[in-house]
């Protein structure tokens, strides 16, 4: 056999260097998270009654993950991997132990040193949290075994059979989802008159009850056993069903299910959740627009918020009686037409000077333009027209005959946004498969070659800008009517960046990806000013967005729900190898043989 045999690893032969390294990283991460203030702040949010809060969870996942990481094998080609053994468990445990020691040091530090000046969270609140309102020795007695245990569990994940690993993953993520989605489930069960259900799962003061958590965990863990991959099989069958008529039927089924759910569910949801969904929708609309610009045409536009602002301000000026300079008080429908015109103009105006730039230059310049537009709205110069920092208030509700869309009724806003999102999805879908969409892709792939192949790159890129601008402006228009006012503050650079993160995390160029991205990020973490399901995150949103972005870029650059194309692209090598092995070469060889 050609493979080098490395299996002669003794059971307790530890890779000390590696363990020490990851142990220190674990300790540092835990201390860092504590000092950032995540645990103290998130301690309010109870996940499991009197046992686990989101704050503690933020410390606890660290040894688990690093235990997993430290014992992960490096897969070498042509080398038989050593069997995972007790040594790996031990290094996992040691990693967890080092992490806990970090926490113990932190407790000692807080007790003896005063470092509150640079470190705001170096305080009693954190101390009490870490010591469980008890002494340092009590705290240490808890943290050390917990850290060791979690590190070991993390390490043992490699050694579990696939089935068990799957079961524990189901249990953990399921429980976590139940805990996080408490508000939604509460709301839903109220809507369906099933209050007893949520009363059973959740405790009065928030969080799941211990019993329900245990029961749920067991049920969830058994889920993969019961379904035995049937679910996945069905999905796979639906996907790879090659017959076109079946494909059509499948997409009709899928489409109608989603449509019915989206239309019916809001009636069973309360105000808060509907508000949340409306926000998700507003950001989805923005993200769909940006997806065309960045995902399809490959133009990294960091000033995207400018178009959002244009939509908002146009609507406010045209419909609000309080508009300081020009106040025709038109109907929303009419203002919407003007919004399209203004957005197109803005798209051309911002697009024209920057469109000949490429890559990073484009990003920087659009970033600047985004800020310029916001500063213009804020400026004294335009104050007589647009209200300066006071903005324009009293933007009326949208009057739709029998219905009215206003901020106080989030459900109506949600439906309004839904209409726009459906429109945006339709646009993206149709354009993707059109002459223009192909030109965008070609430009994204290689701009100079696209030009030589006869594509008018300037026009095509401007088109992308304009389509994106119009969608963003729609979102701004609805926002103005929803909130009832517009301020320059609502259009900070941060909006551009968060939308970009949504698109990247969801999966660039993928419509489904963008939907999932906005639902997860905006829905759970929240938008720049809008709280999500985990309202406690408000202060840490940017930290988490940033961490998520870095993580995604490193580990899954194609996004949560990538397009088939992107997956191929980023895993090109594997694919190439397959293609090579699969057919090309052998076929060509055959032909050669024939001809010889």
């Amino acid at each position, binding site marked *: 056999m050609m493979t080098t045999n490395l299996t002669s690893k003794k059971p307790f032969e530890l890779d000390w260097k590696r363990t020490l390294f990851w142990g220190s990283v674990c300790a540092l991460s835990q201390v860092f998270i504590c000092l950032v203030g995540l645990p103290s702040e998130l301690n309010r949010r109870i996940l499991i009654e009197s046992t686990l809060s989101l704050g503690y969870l933020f410390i606890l996942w660290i040894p688990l993950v690093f235990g997993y990481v430290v014992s992960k094998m490096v897969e070498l080609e042509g080398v038989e991997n050593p069997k995972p053994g007790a040594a790996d468990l031990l290094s996992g445990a040691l990693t967890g132990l080092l992490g806990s020691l970090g926490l113990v040091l932190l407790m000692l530090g807080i007790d003896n040193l005063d470092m509150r000046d640079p470190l705001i969270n170096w305080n009693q609140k954190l101390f009490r949290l870490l010591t469980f309102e008890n002494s340092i020795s009590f705290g240490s007695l808890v943290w050390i075994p917990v850290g060791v245990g979690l590190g070991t569990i993390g390490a043992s994940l490699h050694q579990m059979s696939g089935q068990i690993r799957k079961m524990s993953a189901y249990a953990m993520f399921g429980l976590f989802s139940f805990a996080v989605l408490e508000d939604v489930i509460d709301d839903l069960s109220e809507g369906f008159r099933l209050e007893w259900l949520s009363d059973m799962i959740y405790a009065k003061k928030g969080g799941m009850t211990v019993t329900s958590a245990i029961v749920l965990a067991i049920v969830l863990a058994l889920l993969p056993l019961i379904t035995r991959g049937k679910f996945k099989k069905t999905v796979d069958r639906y996907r790879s069903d090659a017959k076109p008529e079946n494909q059509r039927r499948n997409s009709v089924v899928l489409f109608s299910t989603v449509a019915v759910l989206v239309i019916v569910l809001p009636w069973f949801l309360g105000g808060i959740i509907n508000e949340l969904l409306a926000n998700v929708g507003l950001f989805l609309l923005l993200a769909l627009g940006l997806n065309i610009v960045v995902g399809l045409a490959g133009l990294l536009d960091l000033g995207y918020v400018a178009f959002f602002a244009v939509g908002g301000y146009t609507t406010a000026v045209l419909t609000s009686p309080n508009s300081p300079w020009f106040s025709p008080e038109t109907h929303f429908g009419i203002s919407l037409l003007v919004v399209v015109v203004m957005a197109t103009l803005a798209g051309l105006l911002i697009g024209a000077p920057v469109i000949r730039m490429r890559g990073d230059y484009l990003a920087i310049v659009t970033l600047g333009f985004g800020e310029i537009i916001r500063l213009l709205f804020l400026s004294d110069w335009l104050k007589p027209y647009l209200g300066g920092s006071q903005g324009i208030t009293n933007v009326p509700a949208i009057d739709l005959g029998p219905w009215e869309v206003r901020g106080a009724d989030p459900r109506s806003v949600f439906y309004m946004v839904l209409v726009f999102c459906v429109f945006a999805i339709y646009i993206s879908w149709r354009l993707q498969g059109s002459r223009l969409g192909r030109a965008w892709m070609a430009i994204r792939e290689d701009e100079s*070659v696209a030009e030589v192949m*006869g594509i008018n790159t300037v026009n095509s890129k401007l088109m992308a800008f304009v389509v994106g601008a119009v969608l963003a402006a729609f979102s701004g228009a609805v926002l103005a009517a929803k909130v009832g006012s517009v301020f320059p503050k609502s259009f900070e650079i941060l909006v551009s960046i968060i939308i970009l993160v949504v698109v990247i995390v969801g999966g660039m160029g993928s419509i489904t990806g963008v939907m999932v991205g906005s639902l997860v990020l905006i829905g759970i973490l929240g938008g720049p000013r809008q709280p999500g399901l985990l309202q406690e995150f408000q202060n840490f949103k940017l930290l988490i967005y940033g961490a998520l972005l870095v993580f995604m870029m490193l580990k899954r650059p194609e996004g949560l729900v990538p397009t088939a194309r992107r997956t191929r692209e980023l895993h090109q090598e594997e694919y190439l190898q397959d293609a090579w092995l699969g057919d090309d070469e052998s076929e060509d060889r055959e032909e050669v043989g024939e001809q010889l």
Partner: protein
Amino acid sequence: MSLLEIHNLQVTFGGLDALSNLDFSIEEGEIVSVIGPNGAGKTTFFNTISGMIPPTSGEIIFNGESVLGLDPNQITEMGIARTFQNVRLFPNMTVLENVMVSQHCRTSQLVVGALFQTKAFKQEEKEIRERSEEILGFFGTRLVGYRLDQPAFALSYANRRRLEIARAMATQPRLLLLDEPVAGMNPIETTELTGLISKLRDEWGFTIVIIEHDMKVVRDVSDRVVVLDHGVPIAQGAYDEVSTNPNVIEAYLGRPVEAKS
């Protein structure tokens, strides 16, 4: 009137004359080979004609109109298409999409047609698709069937070269510039492609300029050969004339004195 006329063309890169005093013309229906040692300026010549590099001085006239100062896409629209020596496909687009997208300048549908799926839009899409399949069919079975939907990067090297040609054909040119189309192909594939190049003129009616190092290919396909050395045309004429020209031999083999040292 010649299809392409080049007068006194000069291209300079920071002091280095990549092309100088280039004067020649191409008649409709010709196959002309451009040869010369590495770095002679052959690719630069193509880059200049296709509008990717502005010439320092001189004039390029295609079909009676000057192409200087035009954008590459306008030049393509006038009827000049090219392939790249270092294959530059759109790697993540499928084989079919690569060819479809290259018909951009011959088609016109924009946003509205796509949104309302108008009759004209559907008709145009259908035509684009059919024409693409017809063009890909030119290479026999190599680029059709399941390969239509494969991303371009998954193709074998020879197939990439073929797709480059297909893509250029899709722009419906009158003048086709092929930059080393058989580089990296094995002898059998080379023979096959040589036949296809003649067909490109005889059946598709393209006028062809081809840069090639493979002398067998040059001999087989070309009506006329132009030799460049250090950016200067040193000989032109029929293959047999040129291949025995002492200047050409010297350019390829170096001067006897240099060869010794």
